[in-house]
């Protein structure tokens, strides 16, 4: 990948990550949100995660979508039991690894 365009990508990502972190630290009391706006902002991680998972998880093994689905299911079961992220990730990798051997 072109080095300069990758650097520009990182610069853009760093800016849009830092600014939302920094604004409240500078404005302090001048920033207030209506309950609706706050709810909207707090819901974004949930909807973003949902959209990041589907339909992408089906293409882990593009020819066999059920492999990604089962790997995700393993993470979901462990997640429901409040296991840590790393346990879920390792379990999902193990499931996909084994299924790909079939």
């Amino acid at each position, binding site marked *: *990948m072109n*080095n300069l*365009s*990758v*650097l*520009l*990508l*990182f610069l853009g*990502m*760093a800016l849009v*990550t830092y600014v*939302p*972190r*920094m*604004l*409240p*630290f*500078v404005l*302090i009391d001048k*920033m207030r949100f209506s309950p609706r706006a*706050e709810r*909207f*902002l*707090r*819901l*974004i*991680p*949930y*909807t*973003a*995660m*949902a*959209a*990041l*998972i*589907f339909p*992408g*998880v089906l293409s*882990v093994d593009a020819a066999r979508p059920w492999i*990604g689905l089962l*790997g*995700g299911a393993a*993470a*979901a079961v*462990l*997640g*429901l039991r409040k*296991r840590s*992220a790393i*346990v*879920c*990730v390792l379990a*999902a*990798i*193990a*499931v*996909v*690894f084994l299924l*790909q*051997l079939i």
Partner: protein
Amino acid sequence: MTEKKRELLLDGVRAGLPIMLGYVPIGIAYAVMARQAGLTVGQTCLMSITVYAGASQMMAAGMLADHGAFLAIVLATFVLNLRHIIMSTCVIHRMEPTSLPLRLLAAFGVTDESFALFTTGTGKSRSVFFFLGIHAAIYLSWNLGTLLGALAMDLLPPILTASLGISLYAMFISILMPDLPGNGKLALLVLLTALCNTLLCRVMASSWALIVSTLLCAFVGSFFVELKEESYE
């Protein structure tokens, strides 16, 4: 630096230790994804140093592998990180009055984890130095994990790296799941978003579909989903 400030910094580092253990493996997972997407070792590490946002970086690696447009990647990062506005607001309201340069430095360290540690009962101090100590610990472990993963990538057998594609999704699923059982409306919204994005992906590039369905569904959800009040101010 006075004795007191150094003491607070070290307290913060100690408070951040449990998080460090979790961050190194996730940093490794991100780095492996980034290398698979075609980034060099240096580029993979540079993203962790400059951007410093786990979920966004994993998403960016996935989108790069998908040949997503750079503009779409930046916009999606922005959308995913909008939530930091709420977290930063809570952190700064808990923090003792602090000079602007120190505030600008501390703002870089606002993550889901440092926010949770500083604003909940676990964190005893309201000092900016305590927060900076937490930040230093987490930042160091994130970049250490990135470096390890970026270097180890070449040593892993291909069948194993092929299975690592699931790690991004497993990571997101593990963040999402624990909150759903107690909140039926939230679970409904998550299902709705998954469906919406699957449909939109048929009519537009997946990177744009992600942005549209995230914003649209969060907007729709703000009418009917209730979230626990918990630590937000």
